[in-house]
């Protein structure tokens, strides 16, 4: 079981450590709901150092990433990023990742912890002749999320972040003298930042953010609230909502598949799905009652077995059970009644629009 450089900081903050994708990570500190609501209303700080960072470099880097991802990296200037699935030839999702153009001929891919080894092998196999480097062991990553995130980070870095757009990246900032790279990204549906530093320096950055965040109501947040936050925001969890057996067109990720770019892995299969239509779709649902449909529960539509819940929880913001799952195309329309089997009993549910939660105020983009 691996530990991030913040392990001691988590223990000191009262973090309850659990195994996650080969890492010992904090599942919660103050309590899941309290942490969740802190991110929605103030600010929360997450350790996401377990995620993988892979560089694709050299004169062939752009061609390589274009082949690997379904989204289109051509419009990215240095300092800009995007979200994309990376697909198999069958159109299944090998991983979902964020990609940043970090230099003229350099792209940084941030991948899931649980898929890092698989991703690296896949990228090495398909990126040639571009150079591929796994720098995960040297990079720590924090996520600072919530409406007060910008004020907290500005206080620590002394930099104005107002001009940093969503998916923009700023290199060359410092926090407590530690060089950091900052991106305006996150996994919560709130405004926020992800802050990369050298592995061993992360505790200093963490400490500085906790300190500067205190007057703003910032608290550390664990994996438990990370999951409820991302689910309310309608974001996919790899390995649950999407995997190699599902395609981006079945999940609500059609917007990340750019058919107007050159050849990419999975394109023929995805074009076939686009033309013929997919047989099933991932939908969001609200459940009525208090029992909570969770991952693996059966979904029925019109009395027939329709699919399974991929993610489900009690929504701390909406105060009701919500979830996502795959259903046949015919049952995917908003408002369709579903029945979900929880501990042997049917729970009524209804297909609703994703995301479940949308923040009311967009970050400034001036």
């Amino acid at each position, binding site marked *: 079981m691996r530990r991030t450089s913040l392990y001691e900081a988590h223990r000191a903050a009262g973090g309850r450590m659990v195994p996650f994708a080969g890492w010992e990570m904090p*599942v919660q500190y103050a*309590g*899941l709901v309290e942490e969740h609501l802190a991110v929605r209303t103030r600010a929360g700080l997450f350790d996401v150092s377990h995620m993988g960072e892979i560089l694709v470099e050299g004169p062939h880097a752009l061609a390589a990433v274009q082949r690997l991802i379904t989204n289109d990296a051509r419009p990215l200037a240095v300092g800009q990023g995007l979200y994309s699935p990376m697909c198999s030839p069958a159109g299944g999702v090998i991983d979902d990742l964020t990609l940043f153009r970090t230099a003229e001929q350099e792209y940084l891919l941030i991948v899931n912890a649980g898929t890092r080894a698989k991703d690296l092998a896949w990228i090495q196999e398909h990126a040639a002749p571009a150079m591929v480097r796994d720098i995960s062991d040297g990079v720590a990553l924090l996520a600072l999320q919530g409406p007060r995130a910008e004020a907290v980070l500005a206080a620590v870095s002394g930099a104005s972040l107002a001009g940093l757009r969503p998916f923009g990246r700023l290199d060359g900032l410092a926090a407590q003298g530690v060089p950091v790279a900052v991106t305006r990204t996150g996994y919560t549906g709130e405004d926020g930042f992800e802050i990369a530093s050298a592995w061993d320096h992360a505790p200093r950055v963490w400490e500085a953010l906790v300190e500067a965040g205190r007057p703003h109501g910032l608290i550390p947040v664990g994996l438990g609230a990370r999951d*409820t936050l991302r689910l309310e925001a309608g974001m996919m969890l790899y390995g649950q909502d999407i995997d190699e057996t599902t395609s981006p067109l079945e999940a609500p990720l059609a917007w990340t598949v750019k058919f107007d770019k050159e050849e990419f892995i999975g394109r023929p299969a995805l074009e076939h799905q686009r033309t013929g239509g997919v047989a099933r779709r991932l939908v969001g649902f609200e459940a009525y009652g*208090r*029992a909570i449909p969770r991952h693996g529960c059966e979904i029925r539509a019109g009395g027939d077995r329709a699919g399974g819940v991929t993610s489900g929880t*009690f929504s*701390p913001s909406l105060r009701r059970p919500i979830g996502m799952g795959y259903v046949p195309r015919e049952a995917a329309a908003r408002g369709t009644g579903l029945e979900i089997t929880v501990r042997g009993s049917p729970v009524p549910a209804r297909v609703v629009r994703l995301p479940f939660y949308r923040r009311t105020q967009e970050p400034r983009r001036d």
Partner: protein
Amino acid sequence: MFPTDRKYTRDHEWAKRENGRVRIGITAFAAERLSDIVFVELPNVGAEVRAGQAFGAIESVKAASDLYAPVSGRVVEVNQAVVDGPETINQDPHGAAWMVVIEMSAPDEWEQLLDAEAYGALVGAEQT
């Protein structure tokens, strides 16, 4: 640390004997571990339960867990207040948030349960 006027299961239920009947709830340790309890499912009055088997379920935001009967018997009382206000379980697990009262059918089972000291040791070993 845990009240000595009752016994405990390895699955973190407490059982308090009131003559031939047993009042049942979950321990403060379990409530704290679950955190943010939002739903509890209990049997109806009259239901038969068996020691060691699930008689209900409890949901926190994070996860669902079964409730296991410390003893066998018939459910003679159900705490509707805890069904209507599951957050009580986080607030007062050893008191107001009792769940059911069971009329024991096999009183010998009582001796199989852990006393407060043994349960405290078990919990101490689980805490990291």
